[in-house]
């Protein structure tokens, strides 16, 4: 089992059943489970959406779109069936929160999916897990089977006349499938390439029907929103950022782990108090605040930084998937930038040329650079390539590759210059040979 951590500063809402055996349906019910779904069944769609809007719950996948608003975009009447699709393709480097949700609280995902289905009038939901999460898929499959056996899923859920079914699905290895339109393509048995928007999935989604797509953490939060009431949930967080967030704190901290903290929690405190500070008595060099696609922040930029969508946005980065990657002063930023772009180059689906070519050329340039064969104009060239990817692709993967690259080049230009003209990397241990 992956290690669970705990800290007195935590506010456990979504993680409150972690380590309590709640993958067992009876235990989940004993801990208050499936009460919210029953309540929603009684109250009806308008009430659910009002509570969700009041909660200020924003999408945990990374974009931070208000979940209640997203649900309200689905037309009430539709000639085509409507669907709920849960995105458990957790693949953003630095993020491992959904891993724990599927492991410890699979029924919260199911219950949230039922509630989303009730809110939009869907009869079928899909829970899509990345292919690598086979042992977690088995846990989800068992949980779904148990929910059917109890009559919580099926033709007449909870003894009502309402139908709702859930199908679990496995991916087979693709970061890009975490993007919602690519996720629908994969769900339909195709290559995971993105669709152009509009139309948005709420209007034309899976199999052409109106579809709500939510991240696994968002949907696992929904039963708690209903349980405590939208307003009470909103009150935990910061303005316009309701509730708590599962922060995956990784890298050079003393106590890495997934911590549940209120939205707007101070980043410096998260690193130094909650996660125990930088390991080995070293100093903080930089922090990636929201998964590898978010621009890096310097120590002076996190002094008073509250971790919510708006404040991190204002600081020039993004809260993203809340994967906080902490980097110490013995780390080569050029190597870190190279490893980051290598990932996006590998995962680019190749559909949009700026992303396919941009990631490839930045990777080639950084590889050569880090190996000591860089020239001064390479730095500007890397920046030029990244800037020309921004906003020019169907899906956000192009931006996800360009934004962190720009952050590294702009904030650590001196370190890039230190690698010029055959100078050996001051940190490097793992220099790859130039590929071109």
């Amino acid at each position, binding site marked *: *089992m*992956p*290690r669970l*951590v705990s800290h007195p500063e935590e506010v456990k809402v979504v993680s409150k059943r972690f380590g309590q055996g709640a993958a067992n349906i009876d235990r989940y019910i004993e801990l208050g489970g499936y009460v919210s779904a029953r309540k929603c069944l009684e109250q009806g769609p308008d009430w659910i959406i009002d509570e969700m809007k009041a909660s200020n719950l924003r999408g945990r996948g990374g974009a931070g779109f208000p979940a209640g608003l997203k649900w309200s975009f689905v037309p009430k009447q539709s000639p085509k*069936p409507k669907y709920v699709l849960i995105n458990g393709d*957790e*693949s*953003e*480097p*630095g*993020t*491992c929160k*959904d891993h724990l949700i599927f492991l410890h609280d699979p029924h919260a995902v199911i219950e949230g999916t039922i509630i989303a289905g009730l809110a939009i009038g869907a009869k*079928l939901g899909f829970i899509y897990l*990345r*292919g*690598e*999460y*086979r*042992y977690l898929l*088995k846990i989800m499959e068992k949980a779904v089977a148990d929910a059917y056996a109890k009559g919580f899923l099926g033709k007449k859920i909870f003894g009502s006349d309402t139908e709702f079914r859930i*199908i679990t*699905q*496995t*991916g*087979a*290895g*693709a*970061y890009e499938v975490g993007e919602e339109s690519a996720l629908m393509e*994969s*769900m*339909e*048995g*195709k*290559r*995971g390439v993105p669709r152009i928007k509009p139309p948005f999935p709420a209007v034309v989604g899976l*199999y052409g029907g109106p579809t709500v797509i939510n991240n696994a953490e968002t949907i696992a939060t929904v039963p708690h929103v209903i349980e405590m009431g939208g307003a009470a949930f909103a009150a935990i967080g910061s303005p316009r950022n309701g509730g708590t967030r599962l922060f*995956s*704190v*990784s*890298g*050079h901290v003393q106590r*890495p*782990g*997934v911590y549940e903290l209120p939205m707007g929690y101070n980043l410096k405190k998260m690193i130094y108090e909650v996660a125990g500070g930088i390991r080995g008595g070293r100093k903080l060099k930089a922090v*990636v605040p929201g998964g*590898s696609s978010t621009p890096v922040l310097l120590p002076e930029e996190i002094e008073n930084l509250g971790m919510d969508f708006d404040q991190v946005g204002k600081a020039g980065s993004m809260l993203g998937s809340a*994967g906080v*990657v902490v980097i*110490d002063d013995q*780390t080569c930023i050029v190597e*870190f930038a190279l*490893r*980051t772009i290598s*990932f996006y180059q*590998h*995962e680019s*689906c190749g559909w949009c040329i700026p992303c396919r070519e941009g990631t490839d050329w930045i990777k080639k340039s950084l590889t050569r650079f880090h190996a000591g064969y860089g020239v001064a104009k390479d730095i500007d060239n890397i920046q030029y390539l990244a800037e020309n990817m921004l906003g020019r692709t169907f899906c956000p993967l192009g931006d996800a590759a360009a934004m962190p690259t720009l952050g590294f080049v702009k904030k650590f230009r001196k370190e890039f210059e230190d690698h010029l003209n055959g100078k050996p990397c001051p940190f490097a*241990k*793992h220099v790859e040979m130039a590929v071109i």
Partner: protein
Amino acid sequence: MSPETMSIFSPQLAARFDALVEKYPVRRSALVPMLLYAQDEIGYLSEAVIAEVAQRIGITELDVRNVASYYSMLRFKPAGKYNVQVCTNISCMLRGAYDLYERFQEELGIGHKGVTADGLFSLEEVECIGACCWAPAIQVNYDFHDELTADHVSGLLDGYRGRARAGVPGDGSSSQGWRVEGSATHA
């Protein structure tokens, strides 16, 4: 596919596929899971696997290949019985994933996507596997091993050698999880 038709899959998997294609609003939604489950049993996507999957879904073999080539877990050549996948992405890299990966290369005598001569192990450098807070992490087939150091490598490989001798199936999905001294394992 009718039960009388010859299938290259085990009766259990064939029956599972019969049900799977009927489960979704459209048949081809079963395609990606089917390819992965077929690979788990056969070892890779052989010509015969692609032909039968295409027939079961009702699409062309070319269409199946087109989809299969997109997904990084799907392969067209056999891997080792135990496929060692070392994550070297940022969170793992910061905590020594490259040292770990180098040790695996030394111990196994193979590089990225190589297979040992006895067919027991293959090695892959992979992207983020969603175990960032328990880094560095690897997967052997579907088993996760967390918080490893290079010193764990030989013990871990010996554990799998022992399982091979004991005849434990190689797909990893039947694993009960076992522990390497000082590391964290879950499956």
